[in-house]
Structures are given as C-alpha cells and as structure tokens.
C-alpha cells in the first residue's frame, strides 16, 4: 500500500474521504471523545464553545448564487450552527495564485464582508500567501470559526432516536448542479442557482420553537443528503427510512441531473440542513422552518427506527424499497 497516492476521490466526502480521516488523520490528530461532528465542542471556562475549520477550493470562484468568499463564510458558520451554536468569530486564510486580478479579489472580499454581516459574525484574524502561477488554481480560502452553545442545547450526530422524524429545510442539489452546469457550459431555462447561505438564523428560530426536541442537525454538503444520512445513521446506531417523493428537488435540478447522470440526493448543498427531531416537536419545528426565508420549502421526509442500525432505506415513488448508500467515488470534484 506504500505506493498508494492521494486521488481526487479522497476529497469527495464519500467513503475514501472517511478512510483517509480514519486511517491517516485520526490516529495522530484525533481527539479522545472520538465523535466526528461538523464542529467540535471544547470547554473554555464556563462557556461551551464549538470550533470548526474548512478550506474552500471551488472552481469557478464566482458562480450563480455566490462566490468563494460567500461560501467560505457560510460553510464555517453552518458547521458551527449544526451544533446548535451561535457563531461569533471567524478567521480567514487566503492562498492566492500569482496573476489573480486585484479587482476580482476585492469583489470576493467584499462579498465575504457582506455575508459575515448578514450572518452576524466578525472576521477577527487573517493570513495571506501568494504562490507561483500554476501552484494553486486562482484562489483558495480557509476559514475557522468559534461559536457558543446556548444553555440546554445538546445537538450531536449521534443523537437520533427511534421514533424521531427527519426534516430537510428545502430543495436538494441546488449548489452542486449550479456549479456543474456552469463548469460544463450547460444552459437551462429555469435558473440554476447555488443555495449558498448562512443557516444560523434559521437554526436559532428552530431551536426557539422546538423546546429541546431537536436531536440532530447536519448540513448535507459534499456527498449530499444520502451521504449525510448514512453518517447520521451510523453515528446514532439507527435505521433511517426516507420517502423519496417527499424530498424537495427543484425541476431545473432534476432535469440537469438526468442530463448529467447524477442523483440529486448525492449532490452538494450549501444552504440546507437536515434536522432529526422528537416526534412531538416535528410540527412546531416544520412551522418555524417554513416561516424563515431559508426554510420555505422545508418538508418532513422520513423517520428513524431501530431495525438495522447504520442503514438508510429509500421508499421509491413506486412504493418499492431500496438502500440509499453512501457516495463511493468522486462525483463532482472541487465544488466547495
């Protein structure tokens, strides 16, 4: 195995990414409590603080519905929000390829600032590196962030319980398809826009409505809804059944997916979340989601049981059942 090399598929968010984390990173850099979350909780005095970091290498750096700067703020804000935390401070690191027009960088930084303001976070530290032409693709951004967890909130990937209800905050696959069609020069009648957005406001409204009933939050980015649900089913030791007809997918995304041979349930989102909630809280949470601009198309899509821990099953529109597996290979490189 020593002559194995890193493949693009190791960055897909699917099985090979997991293997890489399990076999290479965790043995040396892992933390003792082990659970893999979007953001990690650490104790700082009396405060419950969560921390997260993410790097953004998307191509193209400007796309319908956003740009790499907006994405870099939203991605880290959302990772923090998925622990129920209130995101507060971010850092930003820039790796810039020689030759990038200054005006373009300026527009991206402006977009970052606008998104940070909208999300109510402040960028408090930064770093800049410039590399030779060819050593990076125009611009890479890393952001890290911290947030505080409100009293009484306990949201983790392992929190799903039999009987819980699964919700999504809106249509699946918008971001990945917007990037893919842009890259391939495909044009569709309907607008294909990335859903890139900070979700902390939506999460705050949901928490206020749920009365402690929210057990799991997850933003289905790389690998899409299917991969995220598999991670949650494994972390919680439960089976999740999803009703395919109930999962919202925009017509333009469905059409573009068929043309490109993709399944929208495996395509990345950057402004959507999955919530797994106690059955008695489901209606209130759904109502709060639909009342928020980023949750208007929210829907109940499935349920949790204890039959086959770790498995995700899809009920097809024909009433038949099949596995909803994890993404294995490289479906769409460099979409975030």
């Amino acid at each position, binding site marked *: 195995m020593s002559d194995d*090399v*890193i*493949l*693009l*598929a190791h960055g897909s968010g*699917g*099985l*090979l990414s997991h*293997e890489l984390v399990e076999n290479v990173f965790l043995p040396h850099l892992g933390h003792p409590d082990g659970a893999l979350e979007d953001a990690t909780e650490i104790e700082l005095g009396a405060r419950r603080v969560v921390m997260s970091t993410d790097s953004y290498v998307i191509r193209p750096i400007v796309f319908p519905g956003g740009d790499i700067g907006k994405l870099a703020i939203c991605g880290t804000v959302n990772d923090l929000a998925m622990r129920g935390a209130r995101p507060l401070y971010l850092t930003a690191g820039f790796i810039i390829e020689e030759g990038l027009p200054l005006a373009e960088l300026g527009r991206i930084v402006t977009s970052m600032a606008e998104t940070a303001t909208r999300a109510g976070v402040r960028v408090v530290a930064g770093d800049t590196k410039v590399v030779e032409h060819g050593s990076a693709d125009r611009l890479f951004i890393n952001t890290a962030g911290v947030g505080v967890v409100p009293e009484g909130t306990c949201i983790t990937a392992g929190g799903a319980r039999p009987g819980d209800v699964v919700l999504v905050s809106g249509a699946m696959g918008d971001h990945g398809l917007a990037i893919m069609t842009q890259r*391939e020069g495909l044009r*569709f009648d309907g607008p294909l826009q990335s859903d890139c957005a900070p979700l902390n406001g939506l999460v705050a409204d949901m928490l206020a409505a749920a009365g402690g009933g929210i057990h799991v939050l997850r933003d289905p980015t790389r690998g899409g809804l299917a991969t995220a649900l598999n991670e949650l089913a494994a972390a919680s030791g439960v089976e999740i059944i999803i009703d395919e*007809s109930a999962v919202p997918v925009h017509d333009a995304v469905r*059409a573009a997916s*068929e*043309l*490109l*041979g993709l399944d929208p349930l495996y395509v990345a989102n950057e402004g959507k979340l999955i919530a797994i909630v106690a059955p008695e809280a489901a209606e209130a949470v759904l109502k709060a989601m639909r009342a928020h601009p980023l949750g208007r198309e929210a829907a109940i899509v499935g349920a949790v049981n204890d039959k086959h821990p770790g*498995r995700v*099953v899809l009920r*097809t*529109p*024909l*009433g*038949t*059942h*099949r*596995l909803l*597996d994890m993404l*294995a*290979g*490289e479906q769409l490189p460099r979409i975030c």
Partner: protein
Amino acid sequence: VTDLTAFRDPAAARALMDSIRRRAAERPDGSDPLRLMEFCGGHTHAIMHYGIREALAPGVRLLSGPGCPVCVTSDADIDAAIALARLPGVAVATFGDMVRVPGTRSSLQEARAVGADVRIVYSALDAVALARQTPGLKVVMLGIGFETTAPTVAAALETARAEGLANFYVYSMHKLTPPATRAILDSGEVRLDGIIGPGHVTAIIGWRAWEFLPAEYGLSCAVSGFEPLDMLHAIDQLVTAIMDGTPRIVNAYRRGVTAEGNRVAQALLGRVFQPAAADWRGLGVVPESGLALRPEYATHDARRAFELPVTAGGRTAEERGCRCGEVLRGVIEPPECPLFGRACTPARPVGPCMVSGEGSCAAYHHYGGSVGL
C-alpha cells in the same frame, strides 16, 4: 428536457406490477421463475433504482446482461489506455466511469495522480475542442460504448478530419449488441425465457435487428425504454408473449424505436467504422462484434498511430478472483462472487462491474440487491 413524470406514475406502476405478478403466477405450481435478461446496463440501473427487481420476485427473475460499456472493456484495453495517457505529449480523453476501472497494474485515475494526462469529457466533441485549442497535444478519445455512443464518436472524427486536426485520435473499443447476445445464447450457460431489448441501442439499429431472437432461438424480446413505466410495460408485454408460446419482438418503446432505426446514424457509422472482432470481458474475442476505424481514418486511429504494449504485465481482474465475466454472462448474480462487498467495493473496485453506475455489481451494492429489502 422532456417531462417524464407521466412515466413514473405510482398508480400505473402498481397496476403493471400486479399484472406481471398475476401472469407469472398462472404457471403451474413449482415452476421455475421466468428468467428475463435485460441486456442494457441502463436498464439494470433503472430496475435497481426503482426497486423493480425485488417487487417482481419470486415469479419473475431479472438477470443482467453484458450491456454496461465500461464493464465489458478488457484488461488489455485498459492497460493500453493507461499506456497512451503516459506517453509524453499525449492526453487521453474519456467518459468519467472509465477512469476508475482497474487494469492489470493501475487505473486511469491512479495513473493521473502520478502524472498521466487524463481528461474527463462529457462528449467526444469536447475532446475535439481540446485538440483544436492545444495543437501541440495529441488528444486520444477513448471510444467506449455500443451502437448508441459510437455515432457521436464518428461525428467527432468527421469534424476533426474536416477541420484538419491531425492531433485528434480515437482508440476504438466500440462494441455491437446483437453479436454479444448471440454469444451468450450460443454458450448455453444460462437458461433464458425472454430478453428485454435495449431501448437506446434499438433506436439506432431498429427493432428488426432483433428478429433473429424469435426466428433462430425461439425467444421473445421486448424493446424497452428506461423510465419505470416503460420497463414495467415491456416486462408485462414480454411475459404475455412468453405465456402465449408465440415468440415475437414487441416494440414497447414506440416513442423512440422504429423497425428500421436511425438511418442517419447508421450511415455515419458506416462511413467511419467497419465491423471487426472485439475483445469482451466475459465473452472473449467475438468475431464481427466490434467497430474498428475504416482505413480512410488510419491517421486518426490510435491503435495504428501509437506503439502500445499488449498488457502492462500485472494480474488481470480474473486472476485477482474477480468474477465480472460470469456476472456479465448472467451466469452468477453479483453477491455470489466471493469478493462482492468484501475485497471488492465501489470505493475499491477489483473489477469493472463494481465501478460503473450501469454495472450490475455496483447497482447491487448501491441499491441493496443483496440485503433482501
């Protein structure tokens, strides 16, 4: 883009599934299930995606055939493609699935990670565009696929020649479906009651191309589209034909398929390609079952223009225990292979049937054909 929701209507689908199950149950008690082979990998994928296979069991058993273009590619051809991509000044352009198929030593994806020039394209014309934009680069398009994709590669070749793009080449691995179907039936390894004919292929070649099935083999064939109602309608018609005892061709994909097929595409194929023996994984070398470039296109033919090793000298998938060959002939189902789901997974495929979305091993693994849902 066509609105396909009408072809996915749940109530209509349930009525067709009931009809198929009822007809299959009319056979005497203790009868073997009706064994239908879907030739096409697109059908395998749709059947698993919509859970149709489980829904029709046990009265009807659906077997996958050799109709996944990546799956039937031989180890030798994959080694050749990798050797091409390693040549200085050469880029290999291919459809996505192909990069993950292991050859005897590595895959195109692994070769790319250590410096080989491999480009993923969505159409052969993208490869022509690459050749146009980079005159110093020799661009080799991997010609993979059946009668459906071959015309697009033929069109790309005509375009390249008309523009005088001497740096555009094709490595043809194109294959023809009727000779492969014959090869499976002639081997006598697997008992079949009927064939689900490939819709897109038949749109090109015309349904008359399948007349040998009832005439020579006494088998009915229903040509099917790819939406769930298309497939259920075709299976329903096929089961009816089998139960009638009068073998025939049923065109259950009238919105796409005619008796004579697409003459423009056929003429295009005839101008660029000629039938030749082809090396199939699972079937071996089958005479007149592939498409080679005609002599007029010799200067664009990567098989003639480049010196290629016969093999990279490693172990073939078969030598590593892979039973893709038997899966492709319908002799075993994927879970019967000892590597399935253990040594061979979509993340680390040993054989090509675990790579492609149209491969039956990948479809079984992905959609749980083995978990008894």
